[in-house]
Every structure is written in structure tokens, then in C-alpha cells.
């Protein structure tokens, strides 16, 4: 007889344990404003990433189409994946001296692991991490980018 009551008690305690869990879910069911879902593709215009977010490597240019990259190649050496290729060219400046400057700063987005080492080691802070994270492309070649814009040149006062 005793085991029978124990059996019944166990059933009730089991049901109670299930109801306790249900209470938690019910609380959230009836307070939907506590939910935290973001409607992602719709909220694109208002979506702000954190400033340090590592989306891609970019090279900021000022309004005169000038950047800070000297073409030193330090970022290329420090990149663990070989995602950066520096192609430099030599030009003759106004004083008639030969000088090596950056021709193309090639960045392979497809090989980048967003480790931030290139940005951290760049001596002239020429590259930064961008906020764009939508990196879906139709073909692979569009993932290879040239970071310095065409016709851009180096800013005044950046020491080589």
C-alpha cells in the first residue's frame, strides 16, 4: 500500500517538475517585448556594428584621394595567411630622386582570417578594419581587392 502512495506522489511530483519548466516558457510567451530578435536583412539601414568590429581590411582615403600607405610591406610579412600582396613601383619625384611607392595593395578577402595583425603592425596606420560583413560574391575573383584607389597617392608628411 505504501508503495502505491509513493507511486502516486511520484507522478504528481513529476507533473509538478514539468509545470515548473512550463512556467518559465509561459513567462516569455506572454512577454514578447522581452525578446531580443533582430530582423536582420530588414534592419540593414539602421544596423550599426561596434567600432572595433573586424569585417574586412580597408584603406581609408581622404578627400584628395590620398592614403597613408608607404608600401613598406610589413603587413604582408605579418599576415599569417598570405592574404596581402604589395606591388610597388619606382617613380621619380620632383627633386629628381628615385623613390619606391605603392602600386597596388592587393588584399585577398577569401584568404583572410580577420586576425587584425596587419592593422596592428602597420607603422603608418594606413589600413583599418572595416565594418562591412556581407561578403557573399558570385565569383571568387571579386574577393580579391585592390585597396588603394586608382590614381591615389601618398599623403604629405608620412615618413617612409
Amino acid at each position, binding site marked *: 500500500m505504501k508503495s502505491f502512495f509513493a507511486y502516486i506522489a511520484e507522478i504528481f511530483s513529476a507533473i509538478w517538475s514539468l509545470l*515548473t519548466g512550463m*512556467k518559465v516558457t509561459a513567462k516569455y510567451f506572454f512577454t514578447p517585448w522581452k525578446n531580443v530578435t533582430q530582423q536582420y536583412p530588414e534592419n540593414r539601414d539602421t544596423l550599426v556594428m561596434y567600432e572595433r568590429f573586424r569585417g574586412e581590411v580597408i584603406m581609408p582615403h581622404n578627400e584628395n584621394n590620398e592614403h597613408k600607405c608607404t608600401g613598406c610591406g610589413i603587413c604582408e610579412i605579418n599576415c599569417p595567411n598570405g592574404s596581402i600582396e604589395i606591388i610597388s613601383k619606382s617613380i621619380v619625384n620632383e627633386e629628381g630622386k628615385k623613390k619606391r611607392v605603392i602600386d597596388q595593395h592587393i588584399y585577398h578577402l577569401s584568404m583572410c582570417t580577420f*586576425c*587584425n595583425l596587419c592593422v596592428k603592425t602597420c607603422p603608418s596606420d594606413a589600413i583599418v578594419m572595416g565594418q562591412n560583413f556581407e561578403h557573399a560574391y558570385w565569383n571568387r575573383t571579386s574577393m580579391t581587392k585592390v585597396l588603394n584607389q586608382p590614381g591615389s597617392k601618398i599623403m604629405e608628411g608620412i615618413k617612409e
Partner: protein
Amino acid sequence: MAEIIEKFISTTDQIKTDEYLVNMGPQHPSTHGVLRLLVKLEGEIVHNVEPHVGYIHSGIEKMTESLTYPQIPHLTDRMDYLSAHMNNEAVCLCVENALQVEVPERVKYIRTIFDELQRLASHQLWWCASGMDLGALTAFFYGLRDREDILDIFEETCGARLTLNYTVPGGVMFDIHPNFQRKVKAFITKFKKILPEYDKLLTGNIIFQNRTKGVGVLSKEDAIAFGVTGPTGRASGFSCDVRKHHPYSAYPLVKFEEKLGTDGDSFMRWKLRMDEMWESLHIIEQLIDNIPEGDYALKMKGVIKLPEGEFYQRVETARGELGVYIVSDGKKNPYRVKFRSPGFSNLFTINHIAKNWKIADLVAIMATFDLVIPDIDR
């Protein structure tokens, strides 16, 4: 009629099914990754489990041989991706030990807070994923929802959510974000209210208890013999917390308890991780207000060269003891790197403890083992 039934029942006792092999994985949702278990079954009873690893082998140990020391940590993010910060820290501590440099106090505090936040995030994901394995899908959403708060804190300070690469040899990559302390404190307050909710939702649940209590018992002797570490080992009563026994970073400064279990069954492993979450909150609380002023990184040489020799450093990740063994021949790349990953040793006890349980119990055992497959394969 009764005769026929009786005859039928008596014959079913004698029916012997053949043993047969089932491949659980490599693409099985409850293996949490590409792990293949070759399970020998008789009916529903598991007779033998043979884990086959290597499906996601990425050759990280070999790759590190061609990288310089500042480049290595970012690869270790990809090993145990839920303990990315601890992996980074292990490599950095090993390099710092080899160079015999002392990082500033501030760095130690920041690293320890990040360790514990990462542990919380990892245990939250483990909680929700193993809830899902055992049929509680609601848990999955709740766990991910709360993990988001930690990931946001990470993202604000380090710029990444999962593959942090925040620790560099000699310090951390950036200083903490001005909002960091405020946000962590807000998170602690919030999470202290949420943790009892987790308990209500699952720990007390009768179905869950019946599926985990007494299932897959790992004895203390076996835990030691198999080299099981982390919460899995501690649930069997094996005191193996690296934070206590070989303290690093700011762990010598904080007070915390090493939780030990007794039974070593699935429920104990579950309970232990829940307790560990409380301890982690406790550790963060002690540190978050006292982060000392100072530099966030030492000035290191452009090219770091370790002296010739062998160096070993261990840390406690969310899964157990991670060891980093670096052999250096004095160049800027290591000669050989070996990672002792906790998941690997933990996984191979599975044959021992899952024998003679049902196949559904095997899932429960795996869920409470908290396996991360890239950590096993490296």
C-alpha cells in the same frame, strides 16, 4: 488464443538479433560536428563504440611550424572555438614563459576576466546544445539568447565574436573598451537571475533526470587512468583544475572553489557545469572592479625569437586541461608544437562507459561530455 500468445512470448525470449554496426556520424546532429562513431549494436543495446576522428583535421600543429610566434595564437582560435581565448592565452603564456617576461598586472586581470566570460559562454552553449540533444529544444533558444550578451561584450572589445585573437604575446591586442566594465556588471546581474531559470527549465525536469541520473558512470580511477580533465573529470571526483593546481594570470589572486562531484554520471557532469557557471560569475565579480591601471601590452620586439629549448604551459579551458608544448631551436618559428587537447582524452573514455547502455543514452553521455570536434582533431 492465450496459448498462441504464450508461445509467442516464450519464443521472443530466445530471439537473438545479430550484432550490427551503425555509423553514427560523421554527419549526425548529436555528435556536434564531424565525428564518426562506429557503434556495434544488439537491438538497442550498445556493445562497442569506436570513435573515428580526423574528419576535420586541419593540421594546426604542422601549420604553426611555419608561422611566427605572434601569428600562432590566431590559429588556435580554430581549435576549440568555444574556448578561443583560453587557447590564445595558453600559447601566449608559453611564449612569455620562454622569454621570461612578466606581463603587466592589468593584462593579467583582463585575461582572467575574459577566460571566465569565455567559460560562461562555452557552458551556456553546452547547456543549450545538450538540452537539445536530450529533446529540450526550448533550452537551445534560451541558451543562445543569453550567450549573445557575452558575445556582444567580446565584439565591443576585441572586434570578433568567436575567433577572438585578443591575446598577443606580451599583453592583449587592444585596451578594454570604455563600456566593458559596465556591460560585464550588467551581464552578471542579469545572468544571476537567469541561471535559476535554467535550473527550473531543465535540471528539475523529471524526463531529463530520468535520462541522465545513473547513466554513463565514469569512476574516479577511470577518469585518472584515461586522463579525463575538466568538468567531466571533476564530476567523477578527480581534482584536476589547472586554475587551482597551477595558477596562472590572476587566478592566484581570486578566491574560488573547485567544485567536485561524486557520482560521475551524466547528471553529475551536468550539475557540475551549472555550478561552475556560478563560480565563474563569482570570479569575475572579484576582478571587474579592481582592474589596475597600466599598460595593456608590453613592448615586444618586432621579431620574437624564443631561446633554444622546450616549453610547456597548461591552462584550463572550458573542456579541461589544454597543454601547449613548444620546441624551439632559436629561430623565429617553432621547431615543433604539440597541443594536448582536453577533448581528445575525454572522448576516448566513451567506449568504456557507454557499453551496455541504450543508444539514446549514448547521446546523453556525449551531450554531457561537451565535445568540440575541431579540438579533438586539431
